[in-house]
Every structure is written in structure tokens, then in C-alpha cells.
């Protein structure tokens, strides 16, 4: 394959994958929703879970985006330093977004800031949004695609706490955000918490946290314990699907962290809605690919 063909073939794969994730939920989310639905006892909540599953069934059958808000397209890239199309990836993902918008079809969700004009293509300045991480010795690339819907993006918040507020302050911050702003984000939510130095580092980590599989655990024992405590605690509030109350408030809580300045605790929360449309794909050096987030996918 020459370079031009390689670019074309990867663009095609990424366009199809981007459109695909708007129609079918990842395996871990599907499993979690089924679990929550089976455990639910509140009659209104059961009604809502039933609507969700018939909606996903209809989206699959009719091959349509399962929610009308297909979001702003974001790609989180972990690229090997030796990945052959490293320099081309930015253009490839932009083209893939254009193509997915036509094919999906995806709703037009890119408004050029300050001009306040919808570009009508889902592309614009720095959109699709790209987040990069370089993996030193690798020659493959792992790409997470995320559809950032309006409702589920709105609760997002970040703050820098004083060390005296401690992890207790982190708990309070998470609870405040979810109880005051979570209801309109289409719960049950996947909650991502970033703990770091400053607002932007914490915010980026909180977003990475909701890209992690739902049942994964933070490698640090204290952090893993806090994930569990927050999940149990938020569920005890019983926000339920669509905020109508029910057994669960969240599908899970994932924490990502970094070392921090001793004088600050940066904390941020990102939320994913029940229709958490994300996908993970690994592109190998020969441009063959493996879809990691959705079982049994044919693109």
C-alpha cells in the first residue's frame, strides 16, 4: 500500500467507526445498563430503562444515531512514536469526521465561537478536538472516539482546593456537581474525577477517566477505595434514570490522578450520560485494526 492508499484506508475505517459508535453502545456500558435495569424496583425507573433498551434496539435495527445529539467529536489518541501515519493522523481524523457526519448522519454541532455560526460539517477551529499522548516504543495507535453531547457535558466543573480541604473536599465537590447538575445529564451517569494540581490537568484527567472501562479500578488502593465509596454513596442518593429517582444514580465512578503540588488539590468532574457513546480502536502498523470497545463489530 502506498502512503496515499494508506491514508485513504485509515480515513475510511475511522469514518465508519465514528458513525458506528453513535448507533451502538460499547459492550461495558450495555452490560452495566442491563445490570441496573435488572436490579431496579422503582416502577417509573423500570419504565425508563425499558424505553432505553427499546431505543437501542430500534437504533440498531434502523441504523440510526441512538440519540439526536451526536455531540462534538473528540479523539483521544495514544500514538506510538513509530506509528507510520503519525504526521497524517490529524488530517485523517478531520476527514473522518466530515465523512461520518454525511454517513451517520450526525447532527451539526460545531458552532464557530465568536462568529456564532454553525459550520454545518462538525469541523471547525480545533474541532474535531484532538488529545495526544505519545507512546515511546510502540508502532501502533490507540484511538478513543467520544461524542460530547450537550446535556452530559454541561455538569463539567473544576476547582482548586486548599490542601486543608483534603480528600473530604473532593467528595463534597463531586456530590455537589452530581446532585445539583446531574439530573439533566441523562443519568445513570458515568462519573470521571480528576485529582491533580490545577484545573486543566484535573479536567483532562477527569475526561480520560470516563474513557476507561466501567469496571476498571485505579491502580492505587486508596484511590480505588474512593472510587467505590463515591459510587456507593452517589447510588444511595437514588437519583435514578432521568432523575426520576431509583436504585442507582451512576453507572460507575472512575478516578484518574497525577502527582500534585503540595499546596493545591486540583479536582475536576466530567460526566458521561447513559448513552455514553465512546469507542476504542487499535490501529496496527500495517493498518489492520482491532475494535476494543465493542464486541463483534464489523465496520
Amino acid at each position: 500500500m502506498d502512503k496515499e492508499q494508506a491514508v485513504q484506508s485509515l480515513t475510511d475505517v475511522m469514518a465508519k467507526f465514528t458513525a458506528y459508535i453513535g448507533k451502538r453502545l460499547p459492550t461495558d456500558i450495555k452490560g452495566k445498563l442491563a445490570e441496573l435495569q435488572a436490579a431496579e424496583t422503582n416502577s417509573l425507573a423500570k419504565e425508563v430503562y425499558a424505553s432505553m433498551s427499546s431505543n437501542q434496539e430500534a437504533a440498531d435495527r434502523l441504523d440510526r444515531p441512538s440519540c439526536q445529539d451526536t455531540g462534538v467529536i473528540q479523539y483521544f489518541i495514544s500514538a506510538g512514536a513509530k506509528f507510520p501515519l503519525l504526521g497524517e493522523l490529524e488530517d485523517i481524523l478531520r476527514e473522518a469526521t466530515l465523512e461520518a457526519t454525511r454517513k451517520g448522519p450526525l447532527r451539526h454541532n460545531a458552532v464557530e465561537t465568536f462568529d456564532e455560526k454553525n459550520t454545518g460539517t462538525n469541523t471547525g477551529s480545533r474541532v474535531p478536538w484532538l488529545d495526544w499522548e505519545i507512546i515511546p516504543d510502540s508502532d501502533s495507535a490507540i484511538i478513543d472516539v467520544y461524542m460530547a453531547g450537550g446535556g452530559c457535558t454541561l455538569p463539567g466543573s473544576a476547582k482548586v482546593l486548599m490542601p486543608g480541604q483534603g480528600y473530604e473536599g473532593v467528595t463534597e465537590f463531586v456530590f455537589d456537581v452530581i446532585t445539583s447538575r446531574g439530573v439533566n445529564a441523562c443519568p445513570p451517569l458515568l462519573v470521571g474525577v480528576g485529582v491533580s494540581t490545577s484545573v486543566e490537568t484535573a479536567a483532562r484527567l477527569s475526561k480520560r477517566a470516563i474513557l476507561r472501562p466501567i469496571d476498571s479500578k485505579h491502580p492505587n488502593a486508596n484511590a480505588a477505595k474512593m472510587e467505590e465509596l463515591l459510587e456507593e454513596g452517589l447510588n444511595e442518593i437514588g437519583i435514578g434514570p432521568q432523575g426520576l429517582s431509583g436504585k442507582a444514580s451512576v453507572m460507575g465512578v472512575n478516578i484518574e490522578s497525577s502527582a500534585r503540588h503540595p499546596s493545591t488539590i486540583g479536582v475536576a468532574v466530567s460526566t458521561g450520560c447513559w448513552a455514553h457513546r465512546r469507542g476504542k480502536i487499535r490501529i496496527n502498523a500495517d493498518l489492520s485494526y482491532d475494535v476494543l470497545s465493542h464486541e463483534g463489530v464489523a465496520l
Partner: protein
Amino acid sequence: MKKILTTPIKDEDLESLNVGDVVYLTGRLVTCRDVAHRRLIELNRELPVNLEGGAIFHAGPIVRKKDDGQFEMVSIGPTTSMRMEKFEKQFIERTGVKLIVGKGGMGPETAEGCQTHKAVHAVFPGGCAVLAATQVEEIEGAEWQDLGMPETLWVNRVREFGPLIISIDTKGNNLFEQNKARFNAKKGPVIERINSQVKFIK
């Protein structure tokens, strides 16, 4: 048995409904959101659709124009109703609308409007846009198309559209306000318990 409301909706159809009841709608459902509310209330423009006894949907759909010029509903889901709180009470008063469908709750002003003018607010499950689209039989009209696809007033003929969960009833009860109070009451003790276990800074 499914409880089905049919447009035009009469006061008597709504009086026995309570928050938390589930109903379905058959008849006409018109999408109506931010700018349409603003045009009527702030700019005093007349709505191009008669909503007396009618139903509106806070929603911005994906609509496809077919080859024969007809519109087809691809995907239609509710948007956050609270954004219309500022206008809804007057909107109810001016239009005679009886059923407002959206996502999440609305505030005290809308609840007051619902009580005074015998109207209800109901929730359609968010994110279930394909399910909703399959309950639209036909798009009968499209007014104010200058507003673009999300804001156009799409006049839909729907059949057993729902589930619609009553969130504000004609007595002024407000399900989301009640829930909010309950969630907040539970919050304190839960936080306290967690915080006794996260004293990692020693």
C-alpha cells in the same frame, strides 16, 4: 391499561392526573423550544400554529427531506426544559397549550402556570430519540423554517407517543422539586460517612 391523551386536550382530561403518572399522546405534537418561546413572549410575534388544547415538545430533531419533498423524522429527543422556564408560564397563558413535554423538571413559575391554566409538564426519557421518531406517523407541517432544523416548529402527527411521565400536574405538584429536596436531605449523612474513610492526608 395505557392512559392515552388525545389532542385537543380538555381540562377534564388532565384534572385526575398526578405527578409520576405515565401517559401517552395521540394527535398533534409540535416542537417548540428556545427561540419560538422568545419570539412569542419577548418579541410579541404570533405563533404560526394554533396550540389551543395542544401539546408541545421541547426538542430539536434530525429531519430528512425525502425525494418527494416530504419530511421524515429520523431522530427526535427531548432537550432540557428548564431553559424555557423563563417563558413557559406566559406561554401557557397566551397559547392555551395543555401538555408540555421535555427533559428534566421545570420551576415554580411553570408549576404556577400549570395550576392556574390546567396544564401539565411531562418527561419523555432523554436519549431515546429513535424510539420517539418511530412514534411519529407523519410530519404535517414545518413553520418558521428560517430558524434552522433544531428550532423549526415541526408539526407531528403522533400515535401513542410516550412514555410521558407527569412531572408537574394541574394541582401544581412538582416531581423534580420533590426529588431534589429528597436527594439533598440524603446527601449530608452520605458525605459524612465517606469522609470518615478518606482521611489520606495525615
